[in-house]
């Protein structure tokens, strides 16, 4: 009997369409509690596959018969086994998630944010399983990428489909939660790779230093990418204003949270920078700018159309992290109340510096789990 597989693409559609799926997660309890496929419209049951080796009869009563049951494991092998056992018991509504949580973590959904003023387009790539966001600015046959993930083919293929040549690749900062695909894409496409120099003191490759006030044009029309130095998450963190309309805030400001200052080990030192960036530098910008962050943490941060975007003025009203009057209270929140650090974040930073070059399989392992770059 062949088990029905559900692809990560189909799963992403079900999340975005707010469908009512039943997830049978057969990883260990620890793995499940740490990280799962998030949707407030899903129901979940977690039972490790090794507790089901002798049979699935005991859980049959607890599984719905009238909607899809998707079995999920780490890589898609154990879920196949369990799904097959359930089918043998007569269930017809069972699927195995192809490639498991690893594939889920790698799935990217391109969502169009908007047209740009001079005929260009702006796309947001939503890495739905891990909460990473990256961007492509397209204009007159040229493309710029911001905070690209290591799934480099997705961007290169997308640019090809749009008949655009990738000419500039940016990282807003040295990432600690995921491996950047920026350098590889730049090498492959002969694009310029930009990094903030203050984050790049230890990198072992050549890059173009991205400094405050720098303007880069994409296409022969004028889609400006204006760099705005905004330290706090890292010392070099830089935001971009694209086409005078969009503020790419990197890991400094998110929709429902703010960046954490400790992932390079300097929470106490950088908390002042973080406050200055959020409460002074950003405050001077137009309220009408649409904030496009590098992460989301919860599905509530997604808009109806699947984008993660909100006006800066709205965030100044609603984002708790922008509304802490007392500086000591702010300091306390961003240094004492921190969530656990992302999986393998030190190794990820070293990979992004070019100091180590792990095999692809190891890179996947390193990126397991949620991004955890924010503090609420």
């Amino acid at each position, binding site marked *: 009997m062949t088990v029905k597989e559900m692809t990560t693409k189909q799963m992403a559609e079900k999340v975005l369409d707010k469908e009512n799926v039943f997830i049978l997660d057969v990883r260990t*309890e620890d793995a499940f509690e740490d990280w799962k496929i998030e949707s407030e419209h899903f129901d979940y049951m977690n039972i490790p596959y*090794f*507790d089901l080796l002798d049979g699935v009869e005991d859980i049959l009563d607890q599984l719905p018969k009238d909607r899809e049951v998707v079995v999920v*494991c780490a*890589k898609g092998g154990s879920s196949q086994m369990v799904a097959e056992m359930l089918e043998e018991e007569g269930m017809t509504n069972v699927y195995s998630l192809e490639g498991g949580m690893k594939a889920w973590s790698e799935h990217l959904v391109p969502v169009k944010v908007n047209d740009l003023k001079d005929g260009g387009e702006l796309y947001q790539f939503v890495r739905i399983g891990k909460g990473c966001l990256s961007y492509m600015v397209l204009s007159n046959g040229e493309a710029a990428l911001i905070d690209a993930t290591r799934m480099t083919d997705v961007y290169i293929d997308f640019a090809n489909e749009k008949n655009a040549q990738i000419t500039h690749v940016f990282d807003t900062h040295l990432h600690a939660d995921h491996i950047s695909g920026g350098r590889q894409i730049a090498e492959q496409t002969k694009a310029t790779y930009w990094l903030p120099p203050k984050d790049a003191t230890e990198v072992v490759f050549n890059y173009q230093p991205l400094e405050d006030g720098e303007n880069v044009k994409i296409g022969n029309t004028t889609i400006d990418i204006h760099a705005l130095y905004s330290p706090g998450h890292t010392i070099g963190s830089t935001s971009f204003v694209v086409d005078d309309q969009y503020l790419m805030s990197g890991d400094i400001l998110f929709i429902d949270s703010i960046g954490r200052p400790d992932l390079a080990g300097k929470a106490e030192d950088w908390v002042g920078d973080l406050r200055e960036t959020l409460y002074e530098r950003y405050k001077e910008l137009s309220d009408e700018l649409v904030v496009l962050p590098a992460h989301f943490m919860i599905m509530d941060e997604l808009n109806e159309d699947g984008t993660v975007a909100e006006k800066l003025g709205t965030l100044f009203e609603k984002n708790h992290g922008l509304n802490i009057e007392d500086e000591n209270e702010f300091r306390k929140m961003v240094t004492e109340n921190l969530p656990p650090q992302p999986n393998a974040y030190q190794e990820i930073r070293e990979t992004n510096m070019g100091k180590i070059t792990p095999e692809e399989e190891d890179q996947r392992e390193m990126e397991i789990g949620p991004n955890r770059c924010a503090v609420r």
Partner: protein
Amino acid sequence: MNVTKVLDATGLACPMPIVKTKKAMKDIETGEVLEIHATDKGAKGDLTAWAKSGGHELLEHKEEDDVLKFWIQKG
């Protein structure tokens, strides 16, 4: 350590290392030790959790030349 049986689960992906471990455990007596070799990185978390839920004791584990080695005492 007195190892009763060695199980080679290298090259196998989930769920096979656990399936084979479970089977091999049936062949040894309580108190005896099974040594397991695996290359699937997921084996670490899974074997640890499986041993605990099955009342066995994971005595030791280490990585040698990309091979994960585990010693589990049957409970």
